[in-house]
């Protein structure tokens, strides 16, 4: 039953399936109903499932997450949409102090099956607060799980798994990949939610990335082939928990690692990966783990974002530096 579909459509189909399968699943957020979301990810869901299942909310992010917590306490499984990455901060308090800690605080008596969908990342020429990558801020918080699919098939299946999880899952959607199409097999047996995948085999160096940067890393690997270099690409898929075993296995083979993400490098997920892989693979590494990502600066205006975001040349440059050790 494989069908080629864009990532946005795959998420839509996945939400539809969840709404059909489980009457406790709700979709909530600003503009998710009639409009179908600003990216049309929830298109048509309210028409088919009604206003009590697909809920247009007031424009209040803390309210969206806070009431989703209450609905979860009542036995519902809300999937909430934060319209854009930079708008999640009004809800950050509810996510960090309440959603993340409710299970521990209740000594396990209360489950928090809430999914928070956040379209994130740059590259679409948007205005301020519409292109950020705050995943490290969430991965740092115990009690939250953080995932980011890189393709339509993962987007479909990871959404199913996130909704079925009894833990809160922050589901980062790489908005610049919404329109990329891929085969989605809705009857497949998917990989576990937090398992990384080697999406391209290689022998000289490992590129580790997630979400929007996986496609770039594949392109980097293609370009490197022309220069006679064999790069392996690992799609991490999940930032918390992070599948270090798969990265370790790859690095033990290639002996070099470059981590690529859009978020600022400083205190970012690349730093965590570099530290842990150095610990695990100290005697295998031929070069220090290198990172490519955003700068320690506010996300720039759209005319400058090509300079800010990792691109083919910046990643290739890191590859060269690693291979030069």
């Amino acid at each position, binding site marked *: 039953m494989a069908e080629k579909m864009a990532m946005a459509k795959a998420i839509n189909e996945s939400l539809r399936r969840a709404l059909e399968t489980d009457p406790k699943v709700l979709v909530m957020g600003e503009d998710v109903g009639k409009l179908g979301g600003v990216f049309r990810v929830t298109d048509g869901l309210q028409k088919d499932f009604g206003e009590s299942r697909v809920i247009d909310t007031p424009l209040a992010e803390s*309210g969206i997450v806070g009431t989703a917590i209450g609905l979860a306490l009542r036995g519902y499984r809300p999937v909430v949409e934060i319209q854009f990455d930079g708008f999640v901060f009004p809800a950050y308090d509810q996510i960090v102090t309440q959603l993340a800690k409710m299970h521990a605080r209740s000594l396990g*008596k209360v489950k928090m099956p809430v999914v928070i969908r956040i379209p994130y990342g740059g590259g679409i020429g948007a205005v301020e607060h519409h292109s950020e990558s705050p995943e490290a801020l969430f991965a740092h918080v115990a009690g939250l799980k953080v995932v980011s699919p890189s393709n339509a098939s993962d987007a479909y299946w990871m959404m199913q798994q996130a909704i079925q999880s009894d833990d809160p899952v922050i589901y980062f959607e790489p908005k610049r990949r919404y329109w990329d199409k891929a085969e989605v097999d809705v009857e497949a047996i998917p990989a576990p939610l937090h398992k990384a995948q080697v999406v391209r085999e290689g022998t000289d160096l490992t590129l580790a990335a997630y979400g929007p940067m996986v496609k770039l890393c594949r392109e980097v690997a293609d370009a490197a082939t022309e220069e006679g270099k064999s790069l392996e690409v690992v799609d991490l898929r999940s930032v918390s928990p*992070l599948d270090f075993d798969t990265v370790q296995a790859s690095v033990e083979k290639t002996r070099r690692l470059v981590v690529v993400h859009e978020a600022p490098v400083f205190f970012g997920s690349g730093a965590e990966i570099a530290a842990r892989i150095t610990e695990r693979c100290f005697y295998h590494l031929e070069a220090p783990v290198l990172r490519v990502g955003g700068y320690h600066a506010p996300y720039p205006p759209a005319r400058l974002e090509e300079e800010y975001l990792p691109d083919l040349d910046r990643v290739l440059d890191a590859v060269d530096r690693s291979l030069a050790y």
Partner: protein
Amino acid sequence: MTVDSSAARKPRRSAAGKAGTTGDKTGTTGTKSGTAGNTSGATGTKRTTRTTRAAAKKSTEPELVQLLTPEGKRVKNAEYDAYVAGITPEDLRGLYRDMVLTRRFDAEATALQRQGELGLWASLLGQEAAQIGSGRATREDDYVFPTYREHGVAWCRGVDPTNLLGMFRGVNNGGWDPNSNNFHLYTIVIGSQTLHATGYAMGIAKDGADSAVIAYFGDGASSQGDVAESFTFSAVYNAPVVFFCQNNQWAISEPTEKQSRVPLYQRAQGFGFPGVRVDGNDVLACLAVTRWALERARTGEGPTLVEAYTYRMGAHTTSDDPTRYRGDDERAAWEAKDPILRLRRYLEASNHADEGFFAELEAESEALGKRVREAVRAMPDPDHFAIFENAYADGHALVDEERAQFAAYQATFATGSESGFAAGEGGH
């Protein structure tokens, strides 16, 4: 008095009789909150008129629903009497008992903190009527979302008071199963729980159930965005939730004037639902008004804001020093309005309770104090591995890894090994 949201909406039960019946009894909106920006009724002009200023001198009480005066006299109230019409002398003795035992529990906890047995305590001294009156208005299938001071409400919900002390002793962050008594865990971040209450109430409405939710918060929390957002959401979705604000006059050191230029109950009007101010030291009035608000919720009439006008007689918590920001005269004035004293006066004057009852209650009170003391001292420290327990429902690889490292490190002590560092670091 009661702010009815809009005349254009369908008439609510007894909405017509509400305005004016209770409100004008005590004259004007009084002390703090009434002077600025009151736009309703007689004090609607920008500056307080001579007449109302004179009236205000006569009574420093702000207008509020009251069924029992501080002297213990029962006063009639056309609007709310109906909600306590069936109350028996036994019920009244029950309310008195609840308040006395709650106060005793609270005093014991404060003492235990002073003795170093608790790390912190948030006393409810003075707020017993607000909590017992509202708590006893709830039905078993209702759900309660407290702050961290609702010990009296917990008592009404059947939560063993000793369970409330675990978080203050530092052995857990909760200590009871919220679903056993429909009493959610204490929430320390100010106002967060009002949104959880609203979401829960939205779920009740979806389920087609007729239970209701009550969310507690304080005057300080009324400044929080989450409280405003919970008002918005509950109004928009007509959620069956009662917002019960205990205005105890002080948010740590900040008076209500630093939170609001209008009486807090009037906030509801702007969100499209009624708000009412009740004498928070009058257990009967709190019971009646909360019953009314819960009935509105159950019958699909949506949210209500109840402002219980009361006073925190003690400190904000045991870490606080109220002598730095308020005078003794203020407390003395409120002590004259003590919620327990006034019900006792009424019980005695109406011969609803005899000396035997009070003596028996005193003995029960002593026994409760002893039980609490012993329970706290016997409370075991949590197992070391509790650090990792319940961080996640479905597990997390990093937690598993760190738990294993921790176990290896701990094991070095168990075996008396001195190479703890190497063993701990080698755990992965």
